[in-house]
């Protein structure tokens, strides 16, 4: 028996609906249809009236969730694709994100963003938008990379009084499997050492954690390098303690992300390690992102647009050679 990443998301929502009467789900085609990715399959039938199809109105979807949260509910909103949350950008950053600071009343909404590229998904069904939401104050932004994290971090997101942008990676949906879900998980805001090592640290999150591990395995087999992989898990706020402790051990840093290169998580990680842990670094810290173009449609281009184990290995060899 095994459980996939998207199953874990479904399970978590099932658990939430079962245990917490404040929870309801809102999104396009999530009710009887079960969602574009089947992350809500069967829930409409199991919890009548609590899994609601929304119109194609991302701005209103988040506005509705904010109002419901203020009235005591714990809404979970599914964006059909992360990319369409651009329409809800204002409600997320300016309404949900500012509310606690302004009024003292928090807005416990969870916005699920099916994120990241898959072959053939193209410029508008592939984006990784964590940097956009992390830039604005007041939003917690999480990026689960494992089946267990997909499950537990969704529960934790809904339990949090603050608005959470939950970035789930579409590539992991069915590809990533686990034999079971761990009983427990670290709290939100805490990173994890996915693979211990001593010669260099790769800081990654979401699907790139797996590419990093693959690259690390290869570097081990091919050249005996022991690469540590840190999974950030939450990108806002960042767990710099774990990152700095890792860099302290290894002296070398590659920050790896699937998002566009300007700004974003890798810039934040490198900038903070450079300023807070400068003396820990034995080599210039490196960054590796996707390219600075829209995410291309054709699988050939897509594979060359984002970091892969091969290109990560190249970057790591440069880092290790320094």
């Amino acid at each position: 028996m095994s459980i996939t990443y998207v199953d874990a998301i479904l399970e978590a929502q099932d658990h939430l609906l079962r245990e917490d009467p404040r929870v309801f789900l809102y999104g396009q085609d999530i009710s009887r249809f079960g969602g574009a990715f089947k992350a809500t399959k069967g829930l409409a039938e199991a919890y009548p009236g609590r899994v609601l199809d929304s119109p194609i109105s991302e701005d209103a979807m988040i506005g509705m969730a904010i109002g419901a949260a203020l009235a005591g509910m714990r809404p979970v909103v599914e964006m059909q694709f992360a990319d369409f949350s651009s329409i809800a950008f204002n409600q997320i950053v300016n309404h949900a994100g500012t509310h606690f600071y302004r009024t003292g009343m928090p807005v416990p909404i969870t916005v699920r963003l099916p994120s990241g590229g898959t072959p053939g998904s193209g410029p508008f069904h592939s984006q990784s938008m964590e940097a956009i939401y992390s830039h604005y104050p007041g939003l917690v932004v999480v990026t689960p990379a494992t089946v267990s994290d997909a499950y537990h971090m969704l529960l934790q997101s809904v339990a949090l009084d603050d608005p959470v942008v939950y970035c789930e990676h579409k590539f992991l949906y069915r590809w990533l499997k686990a034999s079971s879900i761990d009983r427990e998980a670290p709290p939100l805001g805490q990173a994890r050492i996915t693979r211990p090592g001593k010669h260099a640290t790769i800081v990654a999150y979401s699907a790139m954690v797996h590419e990093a591990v693959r690259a690390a395995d290869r570097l081990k087999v091919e050249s005996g390098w022991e690469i540590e992989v840190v999974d950030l898990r939450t990108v806002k706020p960042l767990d710099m303690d774990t990152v700095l402790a890792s860099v302290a051990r290894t002296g070398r840093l590659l920050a790896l992300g699937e998002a566009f290169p300007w700004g974003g998580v890798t810039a934040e990680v490198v900038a903070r390690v450079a300023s807070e842990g400068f003396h820990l670094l034995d080599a210039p810290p490196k960054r590796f992102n996707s390219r600075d173009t829209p995410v291309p449609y054709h699988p050939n281009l897509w594979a060359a647009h984002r970091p892969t184990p091969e290109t990560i290995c190249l970057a790591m060899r440069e880092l290790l050679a320094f």
Partner: protein
Amino acid sequence: MPDTAESIELLTDREHARKVYRAMLEARLLETKLSSLYKAGKIVGGVYLGKGQEAVSASLGSCLIPGTDVFAPLIRDQGGRTAFGEEVIDCARTYLGSAEGPMRGRDGNIHRGRPERGMLAMISHLGAAVSVVAGWLLARRLQGRLEGMVGATCIGDGATSTGAFHEGLNAAAVERLPLVVVVANNQFAYSTPNDRQFACEDLLDRAKGYGVRGYSVDGTDFLACLRVMREAVAEARRGGGPQMVVARLLRLTGHGEHDDASYVPESLKCGALGQDCMAVAAGQLVEEGYAEEAELAEWQEEIGEKVQAALAAAQRDPKPDPWREQWEAFSMPQTGDQNA
């Protein structure tokens, strides 16, 4: 004014009219003072008045039940805020940046509310509150507590052009929520006249397209406003789904007190829409025998003193202290580190 408006249904027309007029008067007197304080350099940022819109706004606010209903006022809704129960001091403190107001100096002027009491704190982005009120109502349905309650929000002619307004009203209509949207068509959005804002003959023509019931009202006519708002709110409360009221009127001042509104043609100011609803209301109260002239003068004095006292108090309040400020946008900072 914490009399619960459950009573509204029980109030006689006379009582209702008197109540609303007093709220209008409080709003007008308060805003007049705010304008003076602004011109004296005592208020930073801007001052945005609802002068001329008090009848529309207060009659809506008066139909809502504090503690039960939810209300999202917009820029020109001092009347509605007051009628819904906002204390003068909340307004004064917010404009004056007091550390003790509901926004504690973090936000200012019209961007205030008491969401825990059902009065939302608007963000500037026009239209954004429509879906939020709808969401609050949806929550109450899910909680089994929707029966007998309504949500209301106000919006200007200009803000009907926002996607947020459209998406919010449509979503509310799909859920058939008891939402009352009052469009104050004051002919201008800042300087932009209706004919650069929309091409329909009357914004009321939009109601049918959302599947909501529409009402038209002369916003300068106090008694008409009372009647229409009462009807629209009651219809929503009865389960009639969203209601849209379009009021025709004129903003009797600038967009903000920095603006002389010289773009408003004299003909409009002198025409029927240019009437001051306060004067109309006073006349109607007397004419209907709802109040005596002398009583109105007494109210003016009584409320004027109250306003004066609140503004004086707010000016003595401590200002926010950056050293004691909690620079924290999360309610649960234990989530992790803070990126200082």
